């Protein structure tokens, strides 16, 4: 289930024709209004009809988000737009890869944290471990903050994918 803690956070799902320029047009509607896109994921979802889904998370007032959604509807390549945050329950997942610094003394502790958070150990050396965690908004944030004291060397996140329930 969704675990929002910020009222202004919106998860917007956009189905578009999979063609060049579509992403740029979508993104510029946000940037032209000084709105930052927090996460963005794009992938083909229907290869026969050549459709992609973009899942965008952003922070903004309801009025501006409503306007952006109307403007998204107006784009020629856009088939469908949903503000998931405002359309009932939905599910969202993100995959995060986190490279955390370790040493002989604390590596068991780090592994224990990873285990309780259900993160997967993908790779490790004497100096670092790389974990994968695929989960919702607040769980990933919680995991990162638990690892922060050990020193996070690098992070890569996919951005959220989301579907209504």
């Amino acid at each position: 289930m969704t675990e929002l803690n910020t009222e202004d956070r919106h998860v917007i799902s956009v189905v578009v024709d999979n063609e060049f320029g579509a992403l740029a047009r979508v993104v510029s509607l946000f940037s032209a209004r000084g709105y930052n896109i927090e996460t963005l994921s794009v992938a083909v979802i229907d290869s026969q009809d050549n459709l992609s889904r973009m899942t965008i998370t952003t922070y903004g007032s309801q009025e501006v988000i409503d306007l952006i959604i109307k403007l998204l509807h107006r784009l020629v390549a856009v088939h469908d737009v949903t503000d998931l945050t405002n359309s009932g329950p939905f599910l969202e997942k993100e995959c995060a890869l986190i490279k955390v610094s370790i040493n002989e003394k604390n590596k068991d502790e780090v592994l224990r944290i990873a285990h309780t958070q259900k993160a997967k150990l993908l790779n490790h050396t004497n100096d670092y471990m790389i974990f994968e965690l695929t989960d919702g908004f607040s769980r990933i944030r919680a995991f990162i903050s638990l690892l922060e004291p050990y020193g996070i060397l690098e992070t890569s996140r996919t951005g959220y994918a989301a579907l209504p329930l």
Partner: protein
Amino acid sequence: MSDQYIGADILIKALLDNGIDTIFGYPGGAVLPIYDELFKQNKLRHILVRHEQAAAHAAEGYARSTGKIGALLVTSGPGATNTITGLTDAMLDSIPIICITGQVPSALIGTDAFQEADTIGLTRSCTKHNYLVKDVNAIEKTVHESVMIATTGRPGPVLIDIPKDILNRKASYKKLTKVDRPSYKPYQIYKEHNVAAIEEAVELIMKAKKPVFYTGGGVINSGQEAAKLLTELVDFTGFPITSTLMGLGGYTSGDEKFLGMLGMHGTYEANMAMAECDVMINVGARFDDRITGRTDKFSLASKKIHVDIDDSSINKNIDVDIKLVGDAKDIVKQLLFSLKKRDTSKLKDNTKKWWKTISDWRKADSLGFQQEGELIKPQFAIQSLYEQTNKLSPIIGTDVGQHQMWAAQYFKFSSPNKWLTSGGLGTMGYGMPACMGAQIANPDALVCCVSGEASIQMNIQELSTIKQYRLPVKIFILNNGYMGMVRQWQELFHGDRYSESYMDALPDFVKLAESYGIKGIRCDKSEDLQDKIKEMIDYQGPVVFDCIVDPRENVYPMIPAGAAHYEIELGPDHKQDIELDKNRV
């Protein structure tokens, strides 16, 4: 195997099959294959402009004066970048135009090649949609789709960028008749929602005591039928009507129910009616900041109905009570239909008191002016031009500034497609090329460009195009030696510090016209004005009319930027008349 044609030929065939028979353009390296094909045929007429910006405005003028799509053709790089002002202008005023740009050969894209620009990137935010064609087989479909997108829903500019090698490659011509773009849904999705909203809107109309119609460019874009239906609706209800700058001509301006234009330089009665109404019926206007003034003081007591083809215009600047998304003519028709099913015998009685109030406001005579002495008042010049041209049903274009506002105030239009002006973007240099486009489309019409000595210089090179095609456009320059509107704001808001607004080193416009082989007329005395205007109208070819006017005149009424409607200021002679009303509001 079917007949094979090169891409440039397919492009021309597809344009023709979409009813496009005129294209404004300027050649260059990347589009030479198209120019070669143009040379070999005689169905698509090419009009050679002198600057690509003018090609875009000419296409706009063509579109605005006919209700059809306008077209332009330019080369890559600077050719494309020069059209950006025109494309943005068409975007803001919802004018359907199609722009074909050449691009460097596919293999050179992204290499900073000679005359390469990222046209698709540069024009993304100033087009309704744009395309980079990477396959010769896609040219035909892309043209059809572009025309459909430019002309349906809320109209706008569409650009097609075609690399030179694609123009030279061969493919078959399929003679498509229908294109399908499932993702493009201009407004059909709202039809069901409207059924209930129409009834709610009619309920409000039935109960209104102080109603006003506020109409805009959407009526013009919807076409002649929309104007006809709107007139029927206004006559049926007996309600007052005001129009935005872009909407002029949507309703007969000479009619008793027309309050004049509203907004920053609108009439006193129109703005007061907006401020005090109880039901506002917006048809095809978008609550622009030049109309609303201060939004938190905007018409607080009214219920608002908004008819717009573009859902994103609704509740954008002003929250409304009833939204009706759709084409103006469809919605107005439905409103009329629903209204006529009811007992409307009391409808006109409901507004008697309101009309009394309006007639009191009208006494302020907010457009009144005094022409005294030899020096020509600009208002007098425009009024005279209107009176002498009116019976000829002229097409009037303008540039941007004081002259534009005076033209909007003193010309009375009685049908759509007669008024060409840059409303949204406010583009100086729009007027003369737009008038060229209108004259090409309407060869027998009297086309008159009202301009200023500053604006006209922004596309003055087009005198050459006017000469080449013998376009009998009348260019009427209100010459006050200043960028008048800039000077006005400097006088009112910047302590008379006329920073850089004086137009020094002006050309002699009469001699300038003559150097192009065009007739020039100068008038600097009020007593000569009527005869000289007549001389201009009677002359068979193009004329540049240099009308020297009083440089101290300001445009009134004026609602200062960010002020409320009831803070409207009348001219210096009027001030006291409205004190009472201000206190009342």
